[in-house]
């Protein structure tokens, strides 16, 4: 361990290392020049360059030097600290030096990758390195704070991703709270008829998992519920869940549906959300036959009793378990959890925003999701593909990329549409024998068995026309177009404009973030990417982690994904959570703030600034006090303290001023006179 007292008064022994990062840095920054220059700076004992500092030999180089030269400060100029700061801190610690004597300079993301001129890049790197050398003079040894991890887990969203993650964690013996906004779990997958490319029946593979969730002793399933509030930090979150009133006591209802039969509305007359409004339901209903939990619910907007209080309440009479409670109110549950998985899914693009395709204008233009319901045996047409006139279509056009790969709507590829369009083409042909035309920009079928499925469809006689559809119109220009919808498209493989009359059009709508994704993101303190999907910590190496420790993401809320990918991600998120739980504790960054009592004047300016109420006023000493367990280390109070009595570890004033001076050391030379100049030339 170093004998240096860390007050910045004596000259420390600094080891400096610059990384080539293969060619990533070395091709733009003259590493040799930086290394030689740094060697001349005060306090620098060792200055080296190496091909890959993060590799084992690179780290060993640092450790060897620490032991051999008694280094007590380490500066590494390489990639972003968000990537490798931890790596080097661990390496430093292994050599017996406090890891917070290490500082990292980002000369890859901040210099070599963003600068086009070699000389400018080298100069910038030199400035940044000099700043770091100045900074580490003021570094102090710090001790990490260790906090326990609560083993209970909150999962948001009961689609296939949420279900899979919940079961994985629950099977490991950990407690899971699964919160679903809708009255039933199952998500979008429950709406599908078959799944590509195997044509498995979606319900057959999903419903066993749904009942497993319901029956699992380790899973508390709260459907028709939403998270109201969450506070705390990794391992120690506290959430409030709002359980919306179903007006039915969940514990008593067995899902016999006698109340639904008894409803004074003999005919169902309200649009059924699960079937996308293509069928009707009563004010008391169950979303679909396999809904989990099997509990009915009331829709207060349509139930007569809620509107006029003049209903005979035949439903209550019909329930022999007295499960109906029309006076039920929202219930709030408070839970303590250690980690959270967000699996809130996606929404489909609203085809009304592509008016050229006539959705909402022409009754026989459907979205792909509507067709999924139509081909489903428990759907609105009991599995028959029918036009609005109730006839079997003789020809069907499937328009790809509606709300995907489009400058005007969503630029991204929704990834699943090519495959589900192929699946729908197969199912339509199977159900009706119709001619099916697929209009595509590019067919994207990477995946196990996917390309083979595409091949199979081509052999089934489905037509593929390459071109983005210009318009769907009912304006007939020829006899065969009468009473049909005509699809106008440029066939880009042949180079002709085609008009293809069809009886039915299916729009393959893309996947989008949910409307309230940004509210959820704010509540859980994570970020969204530009398109609005939740942002992962690293696109390749941390695909299910977020920038907030203990919050993980899985499924289509992170980006468009098919079922296998969603399940794989859910498994990965579950593994991350379990790894946290198994570790039992987690080390927190020691960048918290503290008060130097002798300088504190007791002005209380800092107290209202703290968003975590970590600062209190000690009446006996008339000084402020920071509870370190509550402090998250933003430093807002530090910047505001008029007497400079608050210190933030790792971001102390001296350290920042050191960086500023280091960056500008030569800046004022020609203006500030010869004093600085002379001083600098000594070192140069």
């Amino acid at each position, binding site marked *: 361990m170093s004998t240096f007292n860390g007050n910045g008064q004596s000259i420390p022994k600094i080891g400096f290392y610059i990384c080539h990062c293969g060619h990533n840095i070395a091709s733009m920054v003259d590493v040799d020049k930086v290394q030689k*220059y740094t060697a001349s700076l005060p306090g620098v004992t060792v200055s080296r360059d190496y091909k890959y500092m993060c590799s084992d030999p690179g780290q060993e180089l640092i450790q060897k030097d620490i032991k051999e030269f008694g280094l007590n400060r380490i500066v590494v100029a390489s990639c*972003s*600290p*968000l990537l490798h700061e931890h790596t080097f801190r661990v390496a430093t610690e292994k050599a017996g030096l406090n890891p917070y004597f290490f500082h990292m300079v*980002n000369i*890859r*993301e*901040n*210099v070599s*990758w*963003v*600068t*086009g*001129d070699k000389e*400018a890049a080298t*100069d*910038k790197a*030199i*400035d*940044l390195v000099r*700043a770091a050398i100045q900074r580490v003079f003021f570094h102090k040894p710090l001790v990490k704070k260790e906090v326990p991890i609560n083993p209970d887990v909150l999962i948001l969203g009961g689609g296939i991703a949420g279900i899979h993650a919940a079961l994985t964690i629950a099977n490991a013996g950990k407690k899971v709270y699964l919160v679903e906004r809708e009255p039933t779990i199952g998500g979008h997958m429950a709406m599908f008829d078959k799944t590509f490319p195997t044509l498995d029946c979606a319900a057959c593979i999903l419903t066993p998992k749904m009942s497993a969730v319901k029956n699992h002793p380790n899973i508390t399933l709260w459907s028709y519920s939403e998270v109201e509030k969450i506070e705390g930090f990794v391992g120690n979150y506290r959430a409030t869940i709002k359980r919306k009133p179903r007006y039915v006591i969940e514990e008593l209802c067995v899902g016999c549906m006698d109340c639904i039969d008894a409803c004074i509305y003999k005919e169902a007359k309200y649009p059924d959300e699960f079937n996308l409004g293509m069928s009707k339901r009563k004010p008391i209903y169950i979303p679909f036959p396999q809904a989990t939990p099997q509990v009915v619910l009331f829709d207060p907007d349509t139930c007569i009793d809620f509107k006029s209080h003049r209903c005979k309440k035949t439903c209550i009479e019909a329930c022999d378990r007295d499960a109906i409670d029309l006076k039920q109110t929202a219930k709030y549950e408070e839970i303590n959890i250690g980690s959270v998985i967000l699996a809130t899914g996606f929404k489909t693009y609203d085809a009304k925003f592509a008016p050229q395709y006539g959705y909402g204008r022409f009754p026989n233009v459907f979205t792909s999701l509507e067709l999924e319901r139509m081909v489903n045996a428990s759907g609105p047409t009991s599995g028959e593909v029918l036009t609005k006139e109730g006839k079997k279509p003789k020809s069907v056009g499937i328009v790809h990329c509606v709300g995907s790969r489009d400058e005007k709507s969503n630029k991204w590829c929704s990834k699943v549409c090519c495959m589900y369009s192929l699946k729908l083409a197969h199912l339509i042909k199977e159900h009706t024998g119709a001619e099916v035309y697929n209009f595509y920009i590019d067919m994207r079928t990477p995946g196990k068995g996917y390309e083979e499925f595409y091949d199979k469809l081509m052999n089934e006689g489905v037509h593929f026309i390459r071109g983005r559809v210009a318009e769907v119109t009912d304006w007939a220009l020829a006899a065969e177009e009468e009473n049909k919808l005509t699809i106008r498209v440029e066939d880009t493989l042949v180079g002709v404009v085609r008009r293809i009359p069809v009886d039915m059009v299916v729009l393959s709508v893309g996947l989008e973030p949910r409307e309230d994704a940004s509210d959820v993101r*704010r509540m859980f303190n994570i*970020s*969204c990417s*530009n398109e609005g999907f939740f*942002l992962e910590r690293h696109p390749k190496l941390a695909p299910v982690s977020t*920038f*907030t420790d203990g919050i993980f993401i899985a499924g289509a809320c992170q980006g468009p994904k098919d079922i296998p990918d969603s399940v794989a991600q859910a498994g990965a998120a579950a593994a991350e959570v379990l790894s946290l739980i198994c570790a039992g504790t987690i080390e927190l960054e020691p*960048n918290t703030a503290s008060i130097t009592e002798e300088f504190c004047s007791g002005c209380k300016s800092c107290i209202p*600034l703290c*968003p975590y109420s970590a600062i209190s006023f000690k009446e006996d000493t008339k000084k402020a006090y920071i509870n370190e367990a509550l402090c*998250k*280390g*933003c*430093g*807002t109070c*530090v*910047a*505001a303290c008029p007497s400079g009595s608050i210190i*933030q570890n790792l*971001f102390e*004033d001296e350290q*920042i*001023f050191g*960086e*500023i*001076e280091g*960056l*500008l050391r030569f*800046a*004022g*030379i*020609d*203006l*500030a*006179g010869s004093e600085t*100049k002379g001083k*600098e*030339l000594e070192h*140069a």
Partner: protein
Amino acid sequence: MPEENINKKWEPKIIAFFCNWCTYTAADLAGVSRLKYAPNVKVIRLMCSGRVDPQFILQSLASGADGVLIGGCHPGDCHYSEGNYKMLRRFRLLQRVLRSMGVEDERVRLEWISASEGEKVKTVINEMVDTIRKLGPLGLPGKISVYDKDLAELKNEIDTEIEVDIKPSGKEMVEHA
């Protein structure tokens, strides 16, 4: 290198304070996306824009920076709930002070840049470098030494005056000044 610096054409020197969670991450994204931008801005990483002490800005300018850029999360997105709002308030106050000192508003800039806005890092930095290049050097270190000299002379003058004229009211005035 120092010797070269003197002979080189003047280039704006800008210090940036970026919050760890949004803007610093965005700068990393700009790097990963290989967006090229002006090399004049050098970033100091802080955990939150709320940590930016006005002294950091003043010190940067006084030490020779021609501009200061502060980057934080968009309103409502702060990793620490509201550090960026606290920064905004301080920034508004500081702007008045700087204005009264003759420092142009454009030299100190506050920008909300989220983690996904790598492109914005590039645009903001390029824009700021262009603006400051047009404004020219701030040269505060030079000005400060001139101010110091003026002040010393003034003090000297007053001191001599007091020696000559020992009216008590005159002395009070000096103390208040």
